[in-house]
């Protein structure tokens, strides 16, 4: 999996490309927690090019969202393919994670 990190007006954006599973989730966890340790409080995860996610990926997103919340930060998720979004729904995560349609919607929410 490829992770592209960008910073746009103080928001850390992570663009995920490929498959987020138990094989690749550790690398993602490291990057996202590095950003939290560096003081990032605003984050967007862009799912546009993410083909696949398993519970290992959900775990990292849950953990990071909790950590950010403790720091009074905020995380937005955007641009999911329907079947990726369905995984969040089956897990019940759509009730407390903030999932929006497009990157513009995500940026405007800050």
């Amino acid at each position: 999996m490829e992770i592209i990190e960008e910073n746009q007006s103080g928001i850390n954006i992570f663009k995920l490309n490929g498959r987020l599973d138990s094989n690749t989730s550790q690398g993602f966890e490291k990057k996202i927690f590095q950003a939290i340790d560096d003081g990032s409080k605003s984050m967007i995860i862009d799912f546009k090019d993410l083909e696949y996610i398993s519970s290992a990926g959900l775990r990292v997103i849950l953990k990071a969202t909790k950590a950010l919340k403790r720091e009074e930060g905020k995380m937005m998720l955007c641009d999911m393919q329907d079947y990726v979004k369905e995984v969040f729904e089956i897990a019940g995560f759509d009730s407390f994670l903030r999932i929006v349609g497009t990157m513009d919607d995500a940026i405007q929410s800050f």
Partner: protein
Amino acid sequence: MAKNKVSFKLKSKLSELDTLCQHLERFGQSIGLSPKCIFEANLALDELFTNIITYGFDDKKEHTIEVTISHQNNKLIFNIEDDGIPFNPTKVDTPDLECTIEECKIGGLGIHLAKNLMDEVCYQRCKKKNILTLKKNIKEAEPAKKRMKG
């Protein structure tokens, strides 16, 4: 004609998830499954496989997990066999899905996903092996299409 059955062996390491995905995609495409159906089958098998290799073995040896996928009468049937410690995923409690973010725990979530994406999940312990049989109904709108030339 597309074969309606495929069997393969996976080693007990996480990098084998890619091998699992490749086999599944090749088989799924050969019988004309939709990308969504391949995705769901992949996720269910991934969660069960990851669970087996994470919790299933109490030694450091390399083990083999055998997977068979077959297609018959609008059903996909998956068989997963491992020689790990006895474990019945059908008995795992569903996590509390109504919880708040603070209460939310990740344990049991993978198995919950797998059960949701399959229509049937059966477990047997036989000859010191865990045998999981999963069934997924596929819609009639997804038959293997033959390409016609000319």
